[in-house]
């Protein structure tokens, strides 16, 4: 099987879907000639022309609001938000409009739209080019939220997202774009929205993670194995709707769970997973549900000393695994 970097898989997913379905358009800042600041859309402008690859003005609310309208009138827009940190001018359009259109119209209108955005830190991007934003969206009924961690999942889930009849937010950890490679078959395949994956089997501790943290979790699990701690890793992949059963099955087996996320800890996405486990797997728990997450400061600082302090690392996860295993 051919191997691809993460960003190549995203780009191929876009290209394939645009070839397959004329209704698919791409729009956002610098997605045209420049091919996106991370080159996710490189070559699409040349292949599909300016009607289907639209360089928008620097106006995120417009990007999303216009995509909603275009989706209502027969297109399948794939909007790029240049950095997830800049999605907030469009927050009202996403929460009040995209997420609610179907419900509020009693199923007479729908918004088949995908919003892609690079997120995450560890790339020297400071407060405004490092943020993890998923928790703001996973709390919104009516939105689907996808965060793949492998090139295979990226391509397969992006295809599913574009074909989905409802709004999907598709977040890509920017540190993975070029550092993560993996097998991606040629030809048609999809990965279903709403299914988590056990990416490593283990018996003593379950680690639940997604995005870059799914890789760090595997790395920490490997190292834990050297210390004879058997770790199971669940890569959530779709944060909403969450595949609760896969998570719960694992925790019921291991009896211990560590949830890892890069975002600020308080009120982050992992809090919901912890709450679900605390309620629905209580009888199986042999230790507290613990979390390793970003500290509660308003952003990832720039200076490398400060950034390292902020970021969740395989070491920090390993520490969490050790503590829990010893409980």
């Amino acid at each position: 099987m051919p191997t691809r970097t993460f960003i190549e898989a995203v780009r191929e997913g876009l290209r394939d879907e645009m070839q397959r379905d004329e209704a698919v358009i791409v729009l956002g800042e610098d997605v045209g000639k420049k091919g996106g600041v991370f080159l996710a859309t490189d070559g699409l402008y040349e292949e599909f022309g300016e009607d289907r690859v639209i360089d928008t003005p620097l106006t995120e609310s417009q990007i999303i609001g216009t995509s909603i309208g275009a989706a209502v009138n027969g297109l399948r827009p794939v909007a790029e938000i240049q950095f997830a940190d800049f999605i907030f001018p469009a927050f009202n359009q996403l929460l009040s409009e995209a997420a609610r259109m179907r419900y509020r119209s009693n199923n007479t209108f729908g918004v088949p739209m995908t919003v892609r955005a690079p997120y995450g830190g560890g790339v020297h991007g400071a407060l405004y080019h490092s943020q993890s934003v998923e928790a703001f969206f996973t709390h919104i009924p009516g939105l689907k939220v996808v965060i793949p961690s492998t090139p295979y999942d990226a391509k397969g889930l992006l295809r599913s997202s574009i074909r989905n009849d409802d709004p999907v937010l598709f977040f890509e950890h920017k540190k993975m774009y070029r550092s993560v490679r993996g097998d991606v078959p040629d030809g048609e395949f999809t990965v279903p929205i709403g299914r988590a994956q056990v990416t490593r089997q283990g018996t003593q501790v379950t680690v639940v993670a997604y995005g870059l943290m799914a890789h760090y979790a595997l790395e920490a699990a490997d190292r834990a194995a050297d210390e004879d701690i058997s770790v199971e890793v669940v890569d959530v992949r779709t944060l909403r709707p969450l595949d609760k059963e896969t998570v719960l099955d694992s925790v019921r087996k291991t009896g211990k769970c560590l949830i890892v996320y890069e975002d600020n800890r308080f009120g982050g996405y992992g809090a919901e997973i912890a709450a679900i486990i605390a309620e629905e797997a209580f009888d199986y728990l042999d230790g507290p549900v613990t979390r390793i997450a970003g500290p509660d400061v308003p952003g990832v600082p720039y200076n490398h000393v400060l950034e390292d302090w902020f970021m969740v690392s395989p070491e920090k996860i390993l520490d969490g695994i050790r503590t829990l295993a010893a409980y």
Partner: protein
Amino acid sequence: MAVTQRGEAAGRPAKGVRRVGASVGLSDEQLIEMYRMVALARAIDERMWVLNRAGRIPFVISGQGHEGAQVGITWALKKGHDWVAPFYRSIATAMTFGMTARDMMTAQYATANDPSSGGRQMPGHYGHAAHNLLSVSSPVATQILHAVGIALAAKIRKTGQVAMTFMGEGSSNQGDVHEGLNFAAIHKLPFVLVIENNGYAISVPSSKELALPDVAARASGYGIPGVVVDGADVLACYRASKEAVERARRGDGPSLIEAKVTRLTGHSSDDQQTKYRPAEELEAERSLDPLPKFREQLTAAGVLDEELIARIDAENKAVVDDATNFAESEPDPSPDNALEHVFAEGVEGTF
């Protein structure tokens, strides 16, 4: 670029009217239908207040004073082909574009079969997929971007559709309006923005909402036409809209139409406008009511006469009675419905 045209001044010689109708391409029959629509929207609206005061429906938000502009402007669109993204005062617009009196009344009662939302939304949040009438939300002005997106899709898909949206002058200050006009103008989209300027955003007078009296003055900043019309002059509204729609359909891009209207009622049934509007102003603005004005105009022109007016009134009353009775007897939604239609697949998590 901005063309600022004032509507026909009030008090013009009445005999001009028939020619005005003709000059904008409307037959007497069409003028009568337009009048019927203005009067019907008013009749429904008045009934809503009666029902509210009688404790039958908990909330009313009204279009009284705006109906002339709404009927005149919406009339220029092709029903079942073009798109409208309305706002909460768009009773006359929604009806001109295809919604029936029963449709409107089931929305007031929030019944299971209310086509706008199946009883999920407050009254005033009209929408109807079969008529290309987009579902309304409450946060103001968001709909401009949806209409612009609809126009973008129309252009890309080459459907020949025009998308029109409506909002108040207070709402026109939201950032989305700037972003929407800019994008529509850059891409010369088939899009029309209609501002129904009634001088107030709830209690805030337009002098505290806008630096200039005319929202239309902003159009020139985007290189598009901006027109001010007298919203009580139905035919001037129609003419301005026809021009904007034709321009849009030709591919020449968006326009902004500002109709100066009056808000004859409080902001909603929860508002007492006497607290912040001087009595003289309220009195003076009664003269801007489009219904008597249109009636007198068409009567003077010989299009309407007393008998026809009485017949239309009676027919409208029957339509409103029927709609009210219908809505009163329609069932509430079942609680089971509340969990449905979060996603196309149904309930969350079941795929």
